[in-house]
C-alpha cells in the first residue's frame, strides 16, 4: 500500500482552519466530525489554502497558557 500515493486523491475538497484551547492551529476535513477540544475558524478552502492562511494568522507560537503567564 502507499499512504502517500493515496493522500491527494482521497482528500476531500473542503477543509477548515481549526484552533484548540491553547490557540494552536491546524486543518480539518469538513466531512469528518471535529475532534474534541477544537473549534472551527471561519476559514475554509482546500487543505493548502487553509495552511497558507494559518501562516498569516498564527503569529505567536506560544500556547495560550504560557502567553498569559508571561504577560
Amino acid at each position: 500500500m502507499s499512504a502517500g500515493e493515496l493522500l491527494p486523491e482521497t482528500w476531500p475538497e473542503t477543509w477548515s482552519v481549526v484552533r484548540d484551547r491553547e490557540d494552536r492551529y491546524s486543518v480539518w476535513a469538513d466531512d469528518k466530525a471535529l475532534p474534541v477540544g477544537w473549534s472551527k475558524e471561519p476559514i475554509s478552502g482546500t487543505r493548502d489554502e487553509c495552511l497558507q492562511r494559518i501562516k498569516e494568522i498564527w503569529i505567536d507560537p506560544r500556547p495560550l497558557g504560557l502567553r498569559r503567564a508571561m504577560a
Partner: protein
Amino acid sequence: MNKLFAPNQTNDTVPVDEVSRRASDGFPLSLAQKRIWSLEQIGNSTVFPLQVLSLGWHTSVTLDQLQQALVQLAKRHSALRTRFHRFAGGRIEQFSDVGETPPVETLGSDSNPLTAVEAAEHEAEFISRPFDLLSGVSSRCQLIVTAQGTLKSTIVLHPIVCDDAALSILQRDLIALINNEALAPVIDDNLLRGAREEEWLETNDFTTALAHWRNLIGEEYTATTLPTRFNASGYAGAKRRHLPFQLDATLWTSVKLYAKQHALRPDLVLSAAFAILLARYSGNYSLQHGVLLSNRDADARGPIVCRVEQILPLKLELTSRARILDVCHAVDSAIVTGTRNLVPFERLVQEIQTHEEREQDAIVKSLFEFREPRIRSDLAPGTSPTLAPRSDIELALLVSPNESSGLDGLFDYAEDIYEPGLIERASIHFGRILAQAIGGTDIRIKDIQFIAEDELDILSAPYDDEGVNDDRPVHEHIAAHAARTPDKTAIIYADEVWSHARLDQSANRLAHRLVKLGVGADISVAIAVKRSPEAIVGILATLKAGGAYIPVEPDHPTTRNHHILHDGGVKVILTNSWLLDRIPDGLDATILELDKLDLSQEPDTAPDVHVHKNQLAYIMYTSGSTGLPKGVAVEHGPLTHHMQNTSRVYGMSELSRELPFLPFSSDGGHERWMNPLMEGGSIILPDQPLWTPEETLTAMRKHGANNASIPTTYLQQLAEWADLTDSAPPMRLYSFGGEGLAQQTFDLLSKALKSEWLINGYGPTETIMTPMVWKVRAGQKFEGTYAPIGRAVGNRRVYVLDPDLNPCPIGVTGELYIAGEGMARGYIGKPDITADRFIPDPFSKEGGRLYRSGDLTRWREDGTVEFVGRVDHQVKLRGYRIELGEIEAALLQQDGVGEALVVLRDDEATKQKMLVAYVVPKQGRELEIADIHSALERALPAYMVPSAIVPLTSMPINPNSKLDRFALPAPTPLKRTIIEPQNAVEAEVLDIWQQILNVSPISVEDNFFAIGGNSLGAIRILSALRQRKPQNRTTIADLFNNPTIRSFAKVIEAGNDQAGSEVIVLRASGTKPMLYCFPGLLVSTREYVKLVDYLGADQPATGFICYSLSEQKQIGASVDEIIESYVDYIRSHSKGQPCYFLGWSWGGLLAYEAARRLGDEIDLRLITMVDVCDLGTEFAIGSTPRFKPGERAQLHQTVQEWLSQTAMRAEWDRLLGVMDADTYDQFLRFVGDEKDELPTDGPDISSREHTFWILIDNALIFRRHQLQPHNVPIHSWAADDSLNRGLNLIDWRRYSPRANPAEIISGTNHLHVIGSQAFHSRLAHRLNEAL
C-alpha cells in the same frame, strides 16, 4: 450473451435423440475439464476436491424410493455416468451411455441398521475414496440405513463433471423424483460443451472478448489480496487452511432488505463488502480480484449437471470516498461486462501471462463466491453440510445462506501465504463492513470502522507504567542530586571526573551570567561546543536561566550551522575561542568563549527562575529530505514527563552508569545523558566523536558501565568486534535506534553483547526523543524485515492509520501517528508546516494533537508496532509495490555490506524504470558484487532484485548531512580490463566471438555467458570455427566448460579429448551427492546455472548436452542409444555413490531411463521431474489421424511444394525417409493442425524451421518408446501454465511405487519453470529430505 455458454437456440440446439445416438462416440474435454484432468494425472486432488452431495432424509422416505430415484436421476443427468477414454498418445475423450447407472452401495437395513458413529465412518471412507476415471463412471452413490430409522444418501461426483451449483440441481431433482413430481424435460448437451468451446475459440467473438481483457488487465497488473505473511514469496506450498464463520439472521435479513430497497441482488452487497475488505486491507483501491460465476442464470436448456462455473476477474477503480451503494453498482456492472466478454479462465490466463522472461503473478489471487441456498424439503433438519471448500485460488471467501436464516462463511486460503490470525480478523471485519454498510444510503468506504473502540484502546496503549510524574523540570531533578549526594560521580570524561556538586555549581554560575545577558522564557542559547562536560554545563545553565538550548555541532557543515543560528533566533552563543571562526558575522547575539570566561564572581547557587511547563527547553534541528533543516521546539512539561517515564521503562536508578554514544546533534543523545543524571547516576562521556570498538569496550569495562546507548550501525560493528574477541563486559541494558534492525543483526547483538536487556528505540524529533521503544530480553525472535519499534512511552498513544485516519487492522500497513502530551510545540517560524504535521486528535476524549510521522508501519499480533518503511520510500514498478527498505535490509544482511541504498531510476538507454542499489563496504572489506547479486536473487522475489548494484566508497552527503540522492552515479557497465589475445588461436577465437556475439571489445578473459552468449551463440561459434579449422573437433561442452577465449583456445590447441564431450560441469565441488541434470528438447544445460547457484556451494552438479545440440546426433536414434553416453559417464563417476537426477521436459524421460538402466549400480536418492509430459499425441503409434474429405491430398500437396523450396530439403528428406505410411499421415495431420505456414527459414540453429525439425525428430524417437515400471523415488513438479493448457503430464506413480503426486509451481510455464525461484526453493527442500 456469450455464445460459449448460451449458444443460439435456433441453429445450435442438439435434439435429445441425437445426443443419445452419438453418446457412445467420444467428445473432447472443455479447457476447464482438461485442467482438472491434468491435475488428476499428476496426482493432485486438492485443487479441485471431489463434489459431494450428502443428505439425511425424513423418516417418511424409504430405501426403495431412494434407490428408484437414483436410477431416474442417473437417466436424467449424463454427468452421473460419464466415462473417459485415453487414446493412444494421450488424447482424452468423454462419453456416456444412457443405460448406465453409477454404482450404488447400500449399508445396513431396517433390521440391522448402522449406528451414527458407524454411518459417519462409512460415509467418510466413501467420500475419501479416489476415482479411477479410466475404468469407471464419474460418480458413485452410497445409501445408509441408520439406527434412527432414517436414511442417508451420499453422491460423490468427480469435479470434472460437476460444480457446486450442479449439486443444487441434483439435490432439487432427487427430492422431486422421490416425491414423484414431474420434472421439466432437460436437454443434456453436457458432452458437447468441449467441442463448442473449441469452435468458439476460433471465432471473432473470442478475439473481441480477449481484446476486452487484454485492454482491461494489461501486462502490468497487481492482483489484489489480503496482506501476506513476511517472506511468503519463498517456500509456498499447497497446504490449505479453512476458517468457517457465521453471520446472524438479523444481519442477513437487513442486508436483503437494503438490497431490495436499492434494487440490488443481495449477493452483490456481499460481493461489495468483500471488495471493500480487500481495499481497506491492501490500501489499494484499484482492485483486481475475482468472483465466481456459476454460469447458470441464462442457461435456456434447463438445469444441466456439468462443470460450467468459472472465475471472472473484476477490475474496480474505487476511492475511499466511494459510497457503498456505488461499490455495489460497480461490482454489478463489472460482472455484467465481464460476463458479456467471458473467456474460459484457463485460456485467459495463458493469453495474459505472456511475459517470457519473468515470473508473473496470478491474475486473480482472491475470490468471492456466493452459493445459493439449496432446497431443503424432505430432508431431516440439522443435516445441512458445511460449505465445501474451494482451493483453486490463493484465497477464497465463500458465503452461503444457512438453515438458521443467517450466513455461513468460509475463508479457504493457502497456509504458507496468509497468517491465520489475519484471516480470522478479516472474517470479523467482513461482518462489520456489512453491518455498517447498510446503515444508510450515503455511507462511504472510509466511514466504516474496522476497529472497535476498546480494541483501539489496547492497540494504541503505551507501556504499563504505574509511576507518577512530578512537574519539576529536568534540570531541577538533576540539581536535587547535587544536594543529596554532592560527591558522587556524575560525569567521567577522559581523565576528568565531575561530581554532581561540581556540575551543578558550574551550571549555576553560568546560569547567572545568562540571566544577566537577558536569557529567559523562550529565548534561545546556542551550544556550539563539542560533546563534553562543558556542553552539559552550558545546557543545564541555559535551562536554569529559563532559556531554550540549541545544540550546534561545531564539526557540521558551516552552511547548516549558520542557518541554525539565524533561524533559531539565538541571543547567546556558547562556544570556545578556537571555534570563533565558525560563527557567522552579523548575528544579533552575545558570544561567550567558555575557555576564556571568568565566572568566579557569579554565585554557585541556582538563580531564582520559575519555569512554566509550556516554556521551551530546547530547539533541535532536523533535516528533512528536502530543504533546510527545521527547528523542532520542545517544551519543559512534556520533556520532564517523557524523561521520568523513560527512566522507569529503562529501569534507571542512582546505580546507573551509562555510556551515551549518540551525538548531541540528535535529541536521543540528550535523553541518554539526562536520564542517568536525573536519577543520581552517572555517565561516561566519550571524548571523541567515534571510538574504535576496542576503545568503547575498554572504557565500558574500566569504568563499570551498566547501560550503553549506541546508534544501531555502530552497535553492529561493536558486536562484531565483541563476538570476535569475546570481550563484551556484562551489561544490564543496551539501547539503540536510528535505523531498521534486521533479525540477523539483532541475533548478533543478542549473542555478542551479553546484555540482560535490549531496547530498540524509535522516534521522530517532533515527538520528543524516544517516544516508542521495544524492550526485550536478548535472544528474542521477530518476523518481519525490521525489529519491532514497540509501544509508546509515557503519556502518549500510537496509531497506525490509513489516509482517511481510520485505524488499520493488525497486519495492515498504514502511517504511524503519535498522540498525547509527549510531542513538540511545533516548528520554529513555520506555523503552516506545524499545522500540516500536527493535526487534531480524533481519538482523544480531552482534546489534543496527533503527529503524522511519514513512516509506514503495521501493528503486529502482540500489539507492538513494526516499521515498514518511509511513506515516500515506496515505489511501484511493473505493477508491483516495492518497499525499498526491504531490499536495503536484504543488502545489509550480505557479508561485508556496511551501508545500502536502493533507488528507482530511469535507465538512460532504455528509458525504462529500474531498481539500482548502492552499497558501501564495511571498513576494510571488499565487496563481490556478483555474489551479492546472486544472494539477493535467493532472498527476494525476482521483481525486487535490483537491475544493478553499484559499489561506492561512501554515500554522497549534502551540506545538511543528509544523503544527496542527486549525486548518486548512474550505473555504468562494469569497467573491464581488456586483455588482448597473446597468440594466433586466441586472436582467431576472439574474431569469431566478436562476429557472432556482436560485442566489442571482448577481453580474452571475459566469460562467454556474462557477455551475452547462449546455446545458439555457442553452436554458431563452433560451426564458424569448423569452417575455418575443418580438423578441429571441439564440442559445445568444451565451450561451456571453458567459457573464456583464453581457456577455450587452450582446448583447441590441446586437440580434442572425446571423453566428456557431452558433459558440462555445473559445479565441481561440494559434499552433497552429485546432481545430474538431464536436458530438455531444445534447451542446453546452461539453463540449469541459476538453479545450481541457488542450491549453493555444497551441491555439486553435472549437466549433459541437449541431444539436439549434440555432435553425435543421428537420425532415428532410439532412447536407449541416446542415454548410452550419459549412463557410461554416470557409471564411471558415481558407481556405488549416492546421487540425484533432475529431468526437465523430455529430459525427465531420459533421466528415468538412465535410472532404470543403471539400477543398483548407483545409490540414486531421488529423481526430480520438472514438467515432464508425453510428447505430442499426434505421433503415437496406433493413433489414426482423421481427415476431412480431400484434406489429405491437399496437405500432401502443400508439403511437397514446401519441400521444393526449403534449404533444409536434405534434412527433411532424411527424416521423412524413415517414416512409414501411417507416420507420414500423422505428420500431415500435424501440419494441417499448425496455425502458421510451414517455415522455410532454416537451417540456422535459431530458425523456426530448425526447431520444427528437432520437434518432429524427437517425436519419431519417442513414438517407439514405452515406459516400463521401475521402483525409484520420484518427486515431480508441474508449471501452472502447463496445467492451464491441459498438457499431457506424466503421472510417475503409474511407473514407480515411490513417486509422489506433483506439486504445482504457479506463475510460470514449461520453458521458465527451471529458473523459477519458487521451484528452486522446493527442489532444495526435497533434495535435503532425500539426503
